[in-house]
Every structure is written in C-alpha cells, then in structure tokens.
C-alpha cells in the first residue's frame, strides 16, 4: 500500500542536507518495524519519494513524502509507529492512504509559501519606507540572476545564463514590521519546471534596497507546498485527498 505523508522539519533539523534526510527516512522506516517494501537490486532500500530537494537552512511545517508498505495498515498506526522512531525535530503531521495510483509529488508541486523573519539587530533598514521598497522591487519587469550552466562542456563557452525570476515571485505580504524584526509571507514558484529559492529572493530584494544581508540574519520557514486544482491553489495534502476522491468515484 502507498502512503502520502505531510511532515515538519524544524529546529536543528534544518541543517541536514537532502541526502541526509533521505538516509534518515530509510533508517526511520526500518526502525519503525512496519513492513516496508524494498527496491530490488544490489542495494535494496525502502521505496520513498519526496516533493522537492529540501533546502538546507530552511525549517518547514509543510514537507511531503510518499512511501510504500508491503501491507495495508491503518493510517493512524503508520503515523504513530513512524513518529516513535523519529529523532527530535521531524514529525509526521498527517498521513493519507493511497489505494489508487496518483501523480508523483514532484510532478504536481508548483509553488511554496514561506514565512520569512528578518532580524533587524545588525541591519540598517528604514522600516517606514520598507513597504514602498517592496512595491518598487516588484514593479520591475526583470529581476535577473546568474545561473551557472550545468553542462561542463557548454560552460566553457557560456559560463552562466541570465534568468528572469520576476515571474517566479508570486506574492509578497508584510505581515508584521517593527524595529526588531520584519515578518514576510512570500509565495514563490516551486517544482521541477520553475523553482526559486527563498534565499535568492531575499538576496535580490536586499540588493535592490541597497543593504548588505547575510544568511545569519534571516529565518525561513516553509508553510506548505501548493499546486493548481480547478483554477485554485491548494496544498498538496488537500489536492491528494481530492484526487483520490475523484478517482475512486470513477
């Protein structure tokens, strides 16, 4: 039976890489003693897939994973057993049994919503003008970043290409602003076709404002992953439930 789970990755867990996370899930699934389905071949491992390569340095309360068990086990049991085996900082929040095949997480994801906290202790920002700055930033037609050419051979002629990320910034909202910190709610394109890292968004925003900011001065939390369904944006869990309903009703 296939399962889709929404999980959180908070606190110190933000520092582990995607590869570390994959290995962690492999081990936690084994430790949970649930009857896991293994891949075939020389190096059998639990069958598991993720929505996105999770960014290092980002906390999240909206991550997703798909995995397969040999048997059909009740959702709450699966959730409990896995959470018992998890180390601190990672926890399954919700789980969905998927008796029917659905599209992979990676293929449906198209945006992410982030809560961004900027620590103003060491930064010199005019908070009264900040809203204005954001508006002006977003009025630009082009916000260009350099993307390193992946192909080594091509890289010799064209070391990088310019990408316009403006279209990938979908929404920016100032939730709270005072002399200690700024809280933003930002929606960015996410997924296999177009993907904008929140740290790059921040880098470009502050470059535009003319202030030097470094990684230790902001905190990023992903609230959720979203996809399009019937013209609306819904999170992946809601989407998965809807798809299952539709498919099971024929």
């Amino acid at each position: 039976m296939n399962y889709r789970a929404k999980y959180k990755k908070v606190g110190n867990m933000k520092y582990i890489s995607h590869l570390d996370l994959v290995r962690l899930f492999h081990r936690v699934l084994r430790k949970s003693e649930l009857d896991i389905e293994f891949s075939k071949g020389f190096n059998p491992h639990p069958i598991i897939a993720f929505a996105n390569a999770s960014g290092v340095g980002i906390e999240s309360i909206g991550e997703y994973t798909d995995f397969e068990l040999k048997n059909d086990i009740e959702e709450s049991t699966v959730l409990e057993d896995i959470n018992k085996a998890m180390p601190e900082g990672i926890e399954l929040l919700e789980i969905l049994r998927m008796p029917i095949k659905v599209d992979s997480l990676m293929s449906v994801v198209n945006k992410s919503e982030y809560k961004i906290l900027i620590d103003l202790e060491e930064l010199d920002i005019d908070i009264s003008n900040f809203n204005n700055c954001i508006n002006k930033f977003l009025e630009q037609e082009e916000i260009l970043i350099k993307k390193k050419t992946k192909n080594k051979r091509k890289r010799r002629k064209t070391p990088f290409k310019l990408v316009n990320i403006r279209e990938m910034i979908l929404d920016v909202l100032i939730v709270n602003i005072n002399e200690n910190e700024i809280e933003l709610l930002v929606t960015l394109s996410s997924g296999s076709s177009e993907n904008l890292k929140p740290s790059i968004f921040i880098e470009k925003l502050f470059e535009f404002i003319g202030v030097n900011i470094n990684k230790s001065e902001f905190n990023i939390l992903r609230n959720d992953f979203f996809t399009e369904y019937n013209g609306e944006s819904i999170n992946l869990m809601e989407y998965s439930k809807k798809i299952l309903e539709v498919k099971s009703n024929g």
Partner: protein
Amino acid sequence: MKKKLDKILKDIELPGRYLGNEINVVRKEVENKTRFGFCFPDVYEVGMSFLGLHILYGIMNTMENVYCERIFAPGVDMEDRLRKENISIFTLEEKTPIKELDFLGFTLQYELSYTNVLNIMDLGNIPLKAKDRTLDDPIIIFGGPCTVNPEPMAEFADIIIIGEGEEVLVNILNEYEIFKKQNSNNKEEFYKRIINIDGVYIPSFYQVLYKEDGTIKEINPKEDWVKPKIKRAIIKDLDKIYFPDKILVPLIDIVHDRIVLEIFRGCLRGCRFCQAGMIYRPVRERSIERLKDLADRLIKNTGYDEISLSSLSTSDYSEIENLIKYLIEVNLNKKVGISLPSMRLDNFSKDLIEEITKVRKTGLTFAPEAGTQRLRDIINKNIKEEDLLNSSKEAFENGWNSLKLYFMIGLPEETKEDIMGIKELAFKVIDTYHSIPKENRQPGLKVKVSTSTFVPKAFTPFQWETQISLKEIEEKQEILKAELKNKKIIYNYHDSKTSILEGLIARGDRRVSNIILEVFNMGAKFDSWHEHFDFNKWLEAIKKSNLDIDFYNNRKKAYDEVLPWDHIDVGVSKEFLIKESKKSKEIKTTDDCSKICSNCGITKSYSDFKGVCY
C-alpha cells in the same frame, strides 16, 4: 547562547557536526547529575566512527546519576567563530560550556591527536596542566590505547585510565558519588578512593628522576600508600560485560556509518611489531549466541542497513564460519548489508569464500608486512608466500580483480633484499593472476601496494629498536616507486614526517610534554590531517624544548634501561619481550597462542578469566 549559535551555524561548513540530534541520543535532566563529557579529539565524522565512544557513552548513561555527553574537535571555521565571539566549546547535547562539567574524558587513539586535546581544553578555558587546575575545573581523564605509554601527556591529566574502560569508569563514577556527598573540597581525597582500582594512574603521585646521560633513573610513587605499578584494567568476561544494544545513529555522513559488533579482544598471533597484540591479551571472545542477539537488537533499535565486525584478527574467531553464515542470512532476510573487514584467507574454506562473494564483494587485503620470509620471520608475521599466492589464486578465480597488499618499511634488520622482496611478491601475484585461464578470471587486474613506516612501540619486543630516519624512508620509497612502475600496480606511500613524530611521542617520556605544549602554543592542531600538519613547527618546538629526536628514536636502548612506561603493567612481562627480541635477531619465529603457550606472563597477572589461556 542558542540564538548566537544559530547565527554561527548558518555561516559554517557542516553545521550537522554541532547539533547532537541523532537517533537514540540520550537526554537527561541535568539537576543532581554527575556530568561527564566524552571527547574524541577529532571532528565529529571521525569521532562518531569510534566504537569505544558508543560503548562508554552507553554504559555511563545507564547509570542513573550520570549524564554523559559528547564533545568533538570543532572544524577550523567553527573554532575561528568560537574564539572571535568568546564562546566556550560546548557539549553536543546540552550545549554546556565544558568547564562546567564534573569530568572531561579524552580518548587517546593516536599520538598526533594530542595537540587537539590541548586545543579543546584551551577552547574550554581549562588550564592545561593538572597542577594549575582547581575544583572549579572538570577532572581531566585520558583513556585509549596510547595510554600504555602515558608519560608525554601525564602533566595534562588528573587521571589516566590504562586498559579497558568499561568497569573502571563505572567504579570511578561510583566513588565520585560518595565523594560528592562528603562535601570535601580536597581532590586528593577523591584520588585516594580510586587509586587502588586496576587501571587507575594518577600521574601527580609519581615522580621521574633522570640520570646524567638523560635516560631515566627511576619512576617512583611520591607517597608510600601509592602503588608502585599500575596494572592494566581488563574485562574478564566479554559476554557478561555491557555492550550497547542501541547506538547513536548520526544524521550526517560519518566515516564508518554502520553497526559494529566487537567479536573478541586480544590476538593470539604475537606479531612482534604490533602493540595491540600485546596490550590487549589474552584473547577473550564473545559467544556467537551473544553476537547474534546483539546483532538482532542493534538492527531493530537503529534502522541501520549495514553491519560490520571488529577485532584484531577476525578470521581467528573460533566460530567465524557460522557467524558469517548467520550474517548472510540476516542480509537476505532483513536487507542489511554486511561489511567484512580484511581477513586472512589462508584459513578459510573454499565454500565460505564463494558465499561471501554472493553477498557483497568486500575489498581484499593481505598484509604480509615484509617482502621476504626472512624478515617476516624476524617480525613473527607468520604468513608464507604460498599462502599469499594460493589465496590470491582463490580470490581471482572467484571474480576478484583487485587486491591490496600492505607492507611496512623500516622494520628491524631490514636490508635492500627485503625491499626488493616487496616488488617480487607484487609481481608474483600478477603472475598468479595470469596463470589462470582468461575465461576463469575477471579482466582489469589492479594490485595496490601500500607501505607505511614502522614505528617501534612500547610493550612490544621491538621497543628497544631504533626507528628508521626520514632520509632512509624516502630513499626506500623512491626505490619502490621505480621498481613498482607497472600498469597493473598502484603504489601508495605516506608522508613519513608524521611517523617520525609518532615515534618520538610513542616512546617519549614526561619531558616530551614540553614539546607538545610548545607546538600547541605555536598553533599546531589536526596534525594527522595533511592540510594542517606543519612539520617545521614541530621541529622548532623540539629545538625550543632542548630535546633531541634522535635520543628517543635513533638510540638503541639496552635491555636494562629504565623505560618511561616501566611503572605500567599491561600483563605481558619484560622477560617475555626480551626473549622475543632476542629470538627476532636469531630469525626464529614463535608459534601462535593456540598452538603453544609462550609464557608471555598474562596468566600470572590475571587468573580466572574466560580466555584462550587458562
């Protein structure tokens, strides 16, 4: 502190080293606990691969009143930030500055880690010398194999544990509980309580007197209630003693990331260059039932997908074939990979080799150590050339096409013939490969020859020998480089400057601590790391200390010279070591303990244990 740390972690390499959030990490309330910091003086990825850490962390945390946390050497980038922002190095679990701990224990696994030990104490604002510390500082304990010659680090330790730590540490901590209740502010009273425990060495209670020629006159206890000799701590029954059935599972990549089962301690081969073979006698095995049970529980409690075996000579385990068969079963049923260490294939059944091939092709390593039978006899490494060639043939016929051969250069009585012997063996292995018809072997043969530099160690029959000079090492490496030039051979050799220093420290006395302190003050650290090692700093430090490397490394010692470790008793007698030393010069071998007892003395020192010698 947490906010400060968070900011730093975002800015440095491998923040996962500093988190302490592993699967199975132990967290306790700190109130009313004796706090013990276990430190492996290298980075997280190295230290977490050390089996001893898992054993001692586990056993101390089973004690209700003890909270054992871990400390590792910070990366260079982290250290810069700690120093810049005046943050003390802290424990992984609670992020407590190490100065606040009751005990700080360092495991001394290799001599070149000593500057890291000092560096970590310095980062914790703890005075380096024992005499400068007060009750406000943690009690500094050293353990690990290097402590059989503890003298170069004696000035920095309050307590040194010699031998196997499981019981000693528990006893020390129990005594500390009692001492705490007495509300005394006299550390010496605590030391008096523990001094008679086997394995406990309190360096401040001993003094060393020197002769005019610089050799040692005597090593004496300062008080009459102090034992003149320190007996090594030894675990009698490996089945009964604690072994963790649950271990820390790291979140980041570490060097050896798997379950390790310690199958036995000690070794019965008696190779004359090998310190471990002498200081861990006698052989004591874990029963196969115990090992199977531990394997099951560890797999269940960790989620690891790989299991490995640890011992000094795995193929000598009495039930190795059954153990491997069992592990192969586990591999098939639980999809847990098995990693078999290098093994002597000369005593393996043909079927077993075929079985192992099915599961995973492990690296094949042979360690003849010397290129000629003559030199192998001198060092008592009892491998015959036919064994090596037969095993290679077996391996090639079973699909292996790559092989590693380990040798040492600078062995006692070594001649040019012995060096050429290395080349001859390598080529004979190639010939063996070619003697097999093409259809019965895999293409693409690679023979990897690796030479390291022999360093004479304390408590071996070679402890009186001179060590080869830097110039001679380099000459011999050049000869081999030329002789082994062949498409099918890869020759690996290590920078030998570190071996010179290893020799100085391994057989050094208390005066060598001045060199270690001096070179640390000059900024030396991570000396076993190629990118950080600075030989010139060491040379300068040696000069400043008015000591001479040659005195320690290149002087042939008389059998009756007082050695810096003479007050330590590992169980093997000096008479035995002298006998073996003389035998080596007569090119006579000594059979292994299972064939004949050579009266090494271990049975006289320790009776009533479950071991090979009864």
